[in-house]
């Protein structure tokens, strides 16, 4: 078994290499079912992380993971805010609540953090989700509803730290 290549931080200059084309609109903002997923990346002092990059991976509205849909990338602004236009994914399996896989990269993160965003309007599905229901602090993974979509803050450290995963 070959040993894996270590991760290194994305550093402060990643926009140079990773933002040649816009990737934060998975669907047209005017299309049917379009929702805005936004939020802030916050550090252990509660301050915004303006030089973070957020990527997401999700199933389509029918709950299918497809090679040609479902990935997005957004930078963060001075408030640490990222923003995507996407659709709410369907349920992938009978037990799984709808969710979006989220990865955050930043200067100061030697490895990306991996998490999931769940939806606030799926209480019943969330209660039965085989991942979310087994977490003590799963509430950190549930977005809140805002006008036109959902808000999901990622707290890297400190009170209310987001649950991060290893695979």
């Amino acid at each position, binding site marked *: 078994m070959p040993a894996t290549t270590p991760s*290194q931080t994305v550093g402060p200059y990643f*926009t140079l290499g990773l933002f040649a084309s816009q990737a934060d609109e998975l669907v047209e903002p005017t299309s049917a079912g379009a929702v805005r997923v936004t939020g802030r990346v916050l550090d252990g002092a509660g301050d915004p992380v303006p030089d973070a990059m957020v990527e997401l991976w999700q199933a389509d509205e029918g709950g299918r993971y497809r090679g040609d849909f479902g990935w997005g990338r957004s930078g963060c602004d001075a408030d640490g805010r990222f923003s995507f236009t996407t659709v709410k994914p369907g349920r992938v399996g009978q037990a799984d609540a709808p969710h979006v896989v989220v990865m955050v990269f930043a200067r100061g*993160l030697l490895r990306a953090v991996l998490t999931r965003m769940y939806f606030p309007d799926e209480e019943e599905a969330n209660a039965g989700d085989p991942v979310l229901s087994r977490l003590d602090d799963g509430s950190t993974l549930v977005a809140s509803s805002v006008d036109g979509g959902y808000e999901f803050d990622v707290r890297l450290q400190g009170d209310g*730290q987001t649950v991060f995963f290893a695979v």
Partner: protein
Amino acid sequence: MSRTIAEPFETVADGQDAGQPPYLYPDYRSTELRAPKRPLVILPHTLSELTGPAYGHESIEELDHDLTRQHDGEPLGERINVSGRVTDSAGRPVRSALIEIWQANAAGRYLHQVDQHPAPLDPNFSGAGRCLTDDDGRYSFVTVKPGAYPWRNHPNAWRPAHIHLSLFGRAFTNRLVTQMYFPGDPLFDFDPIFQSVRDADARERLVCNFDYETTEPEWALGYRFDVVLGGPAETPMES
């Protein structure tokens, strides 16, 4: 309503894997407020962890892999070929994997507004490229060797010369962002980002090898950098 009470997931504490950097590495000061402090929760592998985006060749321009031909003139510096192979942790090639790179120019300056290092920008060098791996997982770039540059982590701090790489595997959770260094760099011992990988063998996996085979006579030196992606390594779904 009866509900089975499920056992909590296994967790893994930060820094358990000496082959990967920890989140918290105080010598690299920016980790202090950004490193998660709670153990990572080990996820079962569902479709969310086993699938990922696919990239078509149409999304890559023919010269995207050649950073020396993006402007009217040629960039200054030492022209190099950087090539290698991307495999999964079972040793199988990762095909059609998107690799994106970015780097400083030969003088150690990034074309980025945040970079205030008083070294010259090169009007013929942007420092970004991309390519897809072939059916054997192979990739290649043409670029110039980046220079070392100072940063403010500690007094007289300098980053060893490096190229940033971002890679996608078959699954989104195979995703890797790393940095490729050059052999024998005297700054290795002083660089907390490189040293954050505690295992010496693992650090060596961040250093490319001089490669005589891809060195072109009277044109460019060759360096080889193979990448092994971790994470779930299931049999790929063939379409």
